[in-house]
């Protein structure tokens, strides 16, 4: 075989292997989406959004679970977002090369990959045991702890993308560091930070394990943050394992709903990033 033919062969081989790997990955994603849509779309009706989770055998919806998920995710990001952003700001602007920053970065990476069930257990010990009962606020806190490392990382990365020249210009104008950060660096990195927050929301809106130990579940409507609160992941978990067809159907619908929400959030994050990239080119 000539050298050229050999090269063409290797190229073809590499191309087919990577193509195959991509196809395998996409196949499972497609299969999951297809299964969700096939099984979930049938149960999608107005009832899902207007009625409470039903007892076995009767009709109902997911309203209380949707409400609970939205509330706990929002509180989670309201606590975790600012903490993560400020910590990321410290790492990118104030700490940079300090020893403390290196420790924080390492710990943050550990936290980022810590199993979420551990975080659930931690909050269980921290809040649930002390309060004596499960509660929505405990659920929100555990979601916040999951959101923090994600936000820290994205904020630091995005702030590091702001050109040093821009920061120097503000410093040379006689601006204190906090002024440079709030007036120049944050506006320059705004879309990146927003993207990070969206991704953090997407991440925590699907978490089940931490809520199992903290917010638990509630069959009824509850807006009391001190009491157990229904939420989509735990409802899906409970209903999918049940022997009742109407519960199983609602679990499929809930799963489809969560997946679509995360999809929309991720696409939104992508769009923000691409508009940022275009803005940067100009």
């Amino acid at each position, binding site marked *: 075989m000539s050298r050229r033919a050999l090269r063409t062969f290797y190229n073809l081989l590499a191309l087919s292997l990577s193509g195959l790997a991509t196809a395998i990955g996409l196949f499972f994603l497609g299969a999951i989406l297809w299964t969700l849509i096939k099984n979930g779309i049938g149960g999608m009706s107005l009832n899902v959004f207007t009625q409470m989770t039903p007892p076995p055998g009767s009709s109902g919806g997911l309203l209380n679970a949707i409400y609970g998920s939205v509330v706990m995710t929002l509180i989670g990001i309201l606590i975790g977002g600012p903490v993560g952003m400020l910590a990321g700001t410290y790492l990118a602007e104030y700490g940079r090369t300090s020893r403390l920053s290196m420790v924080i970065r390492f710990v943050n990476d550990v936290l980022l990959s810590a199993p979420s069930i551990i975080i659930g257990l931690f909050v269980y010990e921290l809040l649930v045991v002390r309060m004596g009962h499960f509660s929505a606020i405990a659920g929100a806190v555990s979601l916040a702890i999951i959101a923090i490392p994600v936000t820290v990382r994205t904020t630091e990365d995005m702030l590091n993308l702001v050109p040093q020249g*821009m920061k120097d*210009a503000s410093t*040379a104008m*006689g601006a204190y560091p906090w*002024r440079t950060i709030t007036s120049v660096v944050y506006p320059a990195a705004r879309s990146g930070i927003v993207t990070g927050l969206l991704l953090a929301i997407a991440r925590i809106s699907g978490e089940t394990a931490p809520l199992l130990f903290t917010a638990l579940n509630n069959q009824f409507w509850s807006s009391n943050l001190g009491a157990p609160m229904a939420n989509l992941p735990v409802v899906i978990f409970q209903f999918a394992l049940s022997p009742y067809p109407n519960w199983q159907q609602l679990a499929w619908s809930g799963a489809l709903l969560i997946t679509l929400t995360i999809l929309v959030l991720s696409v939104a994050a992508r769009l923000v990033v691409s508009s940022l990239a275009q803005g940067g080119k*100009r």
Partner: protein
Amino acid sequence: MSESTEPGQPDPNPNAGVLRHLKPSGRVHLPAASEAGPAPSGSQATVENPVFSCRDVRVFYGAKEALKGVTVDVGRRQVLAMIGPSGCGKSTFLRCLNRMNDTIAGARVTGTILLDGQDIQAQDQDAVQLRARIGMVFQKPNPFPKSIYDNVAYGPRIHGLTRSRSELDDIVCTSLQRAGLWDEVKDRLQSPGTGLSGGQQQRLCIARTIAVHPEVILMDEPCSALDPIATARIEDLIDELRESYAIVIVTHSMQQAARVSQRTAYFHLGELIEVGETDRVFTNPRHRLTEDYITGRFG
């Protein structure tokens, strides 16, 4: 920032700037200053009633001495040009004057730098307050991600210089006029500063700098990212600004130094080799290294 010699990071190829200008003959040997005898910088280093008075200024990045005892004065209402091959310490020296080296981890400055007779490195001297009195224009135009108006209003706002909106409007208007940008942007003050052309952006940065009425303006190769026409405009502007400000400019272009400056300082491998009246330095250099550089034998 890629072309600039970034202080703090060791330059991987300190002769890059030299090689770039070199004719086909290939590698160049940068003679060490000591080979050519001691630097007679004392003779014309001082002026009467200087803005800046620098004595034996040394900068260390870690253990490396990047600036080896520079003694020079900056006179009022005149332009001091600093020339020399890449990595010779001229930008490092410039950044001493507004203590921008403070922002680099591991950088240490020794010696005395007096601004109007006041030691800017004194313990009780707040670097942030100091920088408000010294403007700086960078190599790469770096407008903030704000409107043209807000870019110029940034300094007056952070220092609380104005009490009313109309006062601020006046400052923005006069600063843009002095920077020669007003006619081009007066109808779009609210559009983003980043949308301007490179030369306009640099004039915007100059307008932003003079909006706070600094005592000195430092310029770090302000024209190296601009085309010849934009460069000519900035040079005219420097000449006008000289009527009110002391200006220190780092430049790689000897023609530019000759055109805009009254005094020229030649740096070589971290040492100030020669400083004097620009005409004298260019026509009758006292030091062999200066002569070699300005006649294009290297650099």
